[in-house]
């Protein structure tokens, strides 16, 4: 094929990723699922990221409430702050911010881990010993991400509501029950489920990009850093793109 070199390169990379993805999918159903490694990855990805995600979610809700209060107060609409914060956090901000934070934390660590395993020939060694490195390393990590990111997002959402409650109470006194009722009164399934579904795809993107960048890195030491770095960048971009697609799909199919 005689296309321009950059286009050629792009197509080659795309094909490589598609291959990687199909080998991931094939290996899920191959039998001999690595439950132990999967659980360990769930622990590392889910439990170990809970702190940062919870803090971010809390501050997000708190700050968002504080920023909205003065403006809405001018219109006498400060009573709408809880439901506004709740809807925007659950529909959009919670999933995207959690996704980006996890892209930074998880995609980079997966990229660096697999990258360094690649450099020190551990992946080759697994393959030559007859074991299946894709099944052991890639499938477990991607699936763990896919399962854990939605849960982490739910935690972030819950913490955001708590932060919003504290934020509202800096200027007025609102009981927790009233705040809660006001928050969820305008929330519908059509706000909640598309958001949960899109976080599943965010998780898939984070896991896939991290694994792909690490697994296919070059055999030099500097490629470990490169793998980690490009994993974060690519995963973040993917999250933004997926979010845009999700918003379009929801507005076409759900709000129509």
């Amino acid at each position, binding site marked *: 094929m005689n296309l321009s070199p950059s286009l050629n390169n792009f197509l080659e990379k795309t094909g490589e990723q598609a291959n990687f993805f199909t080998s991931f999918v094939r290996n899920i159903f191959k039998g001999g699922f690595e439950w132990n490694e999967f659980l360990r990855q769930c622990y590392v990805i889910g439990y170990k990221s809970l702190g940062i995600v919870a803090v971010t979610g809390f501050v997000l809700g708190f700050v968002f409430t504080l920023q909205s209060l003065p403006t809405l107060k001018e219109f006498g609409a400060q009573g709408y702050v809880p439901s506004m914060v709740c809807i925007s956090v659950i529909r959009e901000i919670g999933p995207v911010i959690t996704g980006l934070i996890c892209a930074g934390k998880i995609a980079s660590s997966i990229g660096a881990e697999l990258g360094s395993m690649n450099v020190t020939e551990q992946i080759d060694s697994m393959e030559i010993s007859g074991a299946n490195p894709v099944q052991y390393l890639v499938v477990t990590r991607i699936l763990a991400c896919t399962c854990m990111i939605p849960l982490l997002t739910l935690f972030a959402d819950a913490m955001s509501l708590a932060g919003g409650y504290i934020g509202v109470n800096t200027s007025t006194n609102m009981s927790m029950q009233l705040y809660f009722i006001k928050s969820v009164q305008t929330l519908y*399934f059509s706000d909640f489920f598309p958001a949960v579904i899109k976080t599943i795809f965010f998780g898939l993107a984070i896991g896939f990009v991290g694994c792909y960048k690490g697994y296919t890195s070059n055999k030099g030491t500097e490629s470990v850093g490169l793998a980690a770095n490009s994993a974060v960048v690519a995963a973040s971009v993917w999250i933004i793109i997926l979010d845009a697609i999700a918003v379009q799909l929801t507005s076409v199919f759900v709000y129509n």
Partner: protein
Amino acid sequence: MKTNLSQKIKTGIFVALGIGILLITVFILGKQKNLFNSTFTLHANFKNVSGLLAGNVVRFGGINVGTVDDITILNDTTIQVNLKLQTSVKKFIKKDAIASIGSDGLMGDKIIQVSPGTVPNPVVNDGDMITGKDPLNMDQVVTKLNAIATSAEVLTTNLAAIVQKVNNGQGSLGRLLNNDQLARNLEGTINSTKETVQSIKKGAEGFSENMQAAKSNFLLKGYFKKKEKQRIADSTKKANDKAQGVKKN
């Protein structure tokens, strides 16, 4: 690498909590949407639902008791709205209840308000039809506003005429405001008052001179002298009393 027991437990707690949040949210949202409560259905026909949507809230006595389930067009002038209400409010709604479309606040969503109906009528059954009261049409509002504007125009024209008359000094109000005769009269009154006060003052001075003259008159001298002596005696007595008081102390 194997996961040890505490890692497994932590992961387990994490996953359980996450799924718990998911289920709670589903339950809360479902409760709002009457998914898990027992419900019954009422129908109401309207000519115009002015933007009501499936999923809007139904209120009874100001309380959210259900949602709009479905809106269908029956024929060119009739829109049927199906209301899904909680069974717990069924016993308060009579057959002559009226469903009316209103809005929640100035900019809020459309809502349906269900009135209870009157006592002698029996309680509604599932699937009953109740009367739908058409919402205030925007066209009607505009027509009314138009009438108001017309009368306002008449009013302002009349007002303008009145003001015109007042300005020209017609009528008693106009004269009062426009004629300065009154002010001049007032000024004259004040001046004559001043003169009167002056003459009273002069009279008083004359009386005082007369009294002075009377004092020096011999006929009355004895009386004045006596009065003087008495005054001196009084003051010496007072001084003595005081001196004695000082000694005692």
